[in-house]
């Protein structure tokens, strides 16, 4: 079994992302009952999306490599590790050995957990399996083992499902969205870390009495909510602070704006390719679990239009930059960049812990991102390796730049497993399984809705 999976993994990876993932997607679609012509179209579109992502990520590479080093030397700060952002990271993660297999194996694992009654979440958001592939790639980097990488990725999926089950009653009530849960680590992972802090800040009276109207923030800082505009502003500031002349700074700004707009557009083609497969999977599974109650697992983006979440997400833009500077004496070298546009994901599942209070949500965001930023620096070698070895062909001058992904490297599951798997494999496997069992009992014994639900 182990040998077979390893050789399948190696064979697929040898084919590269333009062939491997598209073939897996088309085959999976056919197995799940998608019409064969539509399944082949999904596969082809996956390949096309990768071509588009390669082109735009190349632009990202040439833009960021001019900023990181010059910014650090010219400002005297040591923020020389650049955040390449989650849209590029998602493509990188899918273009790895673990990434090729995570979608079919992830669906299979979810079905098994539902059959055994260990989870109530049916994750139809297979697109976000890339977060698991990301962890898998990091663990493969640490251990050199494909099997351990795959193990860690699947374990991360179990953690995501358990976190979704655990938070579902609170999320459903707070956002008034019955029947859903959020197995999306880019929000649920932060929530896990924020629970104890949430409990604490809810007990500090003076914090509770400061009120801020989310709609005022949203209207005042609205421009920062548009990634293209945010990209222009950030690019310009980094260019000027990095000692570029006015013309070059404007060019950096325009290129950053382009990156912020173009990469997500390309990524949406990948989502478009995966959508019919996700639908086929969800039909296939709902048919088999008829009459059973379960939550539909969704992307936390569905929560992110809430005004508190938007307001806190906007406030986090300047705060994350300040945090990066303030934490630089403590070892932070990460320069927040592309992921500044997505503070809403950080805030999405923190807001229910503090009854939707803007200041407290932002405060929790600062705490989890403060802890997370240090780890984004520590995980940078793994991410850089991911960038270099993926067949994405990002053009990087060697020995020059180091990369990280602010959103994902700051998620506790990413750094937790990254460090755990630096111990001998047997210990890492046993301890990580014990942690998952612990999480299972935590979700069964601690009622988040009772602990944090708004008391009126």
């Amino acid at each position, binding site marked *: 079994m182990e040998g077979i999976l390893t050789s399948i993994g190696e064979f697929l990876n040898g084919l590269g992302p333009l062939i491997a993932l598209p073939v897996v997607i088309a085959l999976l679609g056919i197995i799940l009952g998608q019409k064969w012509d539509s399944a082949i179209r999904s596969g082809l579109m996956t390949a096309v999306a990768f071509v588009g992502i390669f082109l735009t990520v190349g632009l990202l590479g040439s833009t960021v490599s001019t900023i990181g080093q010059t910014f650090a030397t010219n400002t005297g700060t040591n923020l020389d590790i650049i955040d390449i952002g989650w849209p590029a990271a998602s493509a990188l993660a899918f273009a790895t050995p673990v990434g090729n297999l995570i979608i079919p194996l992830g669906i299979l694992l979810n079905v098994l957990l539902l059959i055994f009654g260990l989870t109530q979440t049916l994750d139809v958001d297979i697109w976000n399996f890339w977060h698991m592939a990301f962890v898998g790639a990091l663990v493969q980097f640490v251990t050199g083992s494909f099997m351990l990488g795959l193990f860690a990725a699947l374990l991360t999926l179990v953690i995501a499902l358990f976190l979704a089950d655990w938070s579902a009653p609170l999320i459903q009530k707070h956002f008034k969205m019955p029947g859903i849960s959020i197995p999306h680590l880019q929000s649920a992972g932060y929530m896990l870390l924020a629970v104890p802090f949430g409990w604490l800040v809810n007990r500090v009276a003076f914090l509770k009495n400061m009120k801020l109207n989310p709609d005022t923030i949203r209207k005042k800082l609205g421009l920062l909510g548009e990634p293209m505009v945010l990209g222009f502003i950030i690019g310009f500031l980094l260019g000027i602070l990095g000692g570029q002349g006015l013309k070059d700074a404007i060019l950096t700004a325009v290129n950053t704006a382009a990156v912020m707009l173009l990469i997500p557009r390309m990524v949406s083609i990948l989502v478009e390719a995966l*959508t019919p497969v996700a639908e086929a999977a969800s039909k296939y599974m709902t048919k088999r679990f008829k009459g059973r109650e379960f939550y539909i697992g969704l992307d936390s*983006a569905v*929560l992110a*239009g809430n005004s508190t979440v938007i307001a806190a997400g906007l406030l986090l833009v300047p705060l994350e930059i300040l945090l990066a500077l303030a934490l630089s004496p403590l070892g932070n070298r990460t320069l927040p960049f592309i992921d500044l546009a997505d503070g809403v994901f950080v805030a999405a599942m923190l807001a229910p812990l503090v009854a939707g209070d803007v200041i407290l949500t932002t405060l929790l965001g600062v705490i989890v991102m403060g802890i997370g930023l240090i780890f984004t620096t520590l995980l940078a070698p793994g991410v850089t390796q991911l960038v270099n070895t993926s067949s994405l062909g990002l053009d990087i001058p060697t020995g020059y730049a180091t990369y990280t992904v602010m959103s994902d490297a700051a998620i506790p599951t990413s750094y937790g497993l990254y460090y755990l798997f630096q111990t001998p494999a047997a210990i890492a496997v046993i301890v990580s399984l014990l942690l998952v069992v612990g999480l299972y009992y935590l979700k069964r014994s601690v009622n988040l809705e009772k602990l944090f639900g708004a008391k009126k």
Partner: protein
Amino acid sequence: MKTVYVVCATGIATSTMLRLKVESFLEERGIEARVLQFRVTELSPERVEADVILATTEIPPEFEGLATVINGISLITGIGQGETLESLARALRDDS
């Protein structure tokens, strides 16, 4: 021609799924409409030219009255999606 905005928090993921479903539904019904995809924070009340805003996420209250706002979560979960598509069709048929 009438215009539908499909909206989510990123303008990437769930809004893409909405767009695919809406486009195939409109084609099936022979309803002609433009379908445009947005990130919720890109919308501003002054620039909205939509008849319907179909969103997987909360839409700020100032958009009520500018367009028919429909919750599109059901198109992602698959539960109750028929009703949502019907109300979309109704909103596009009305000559108001």
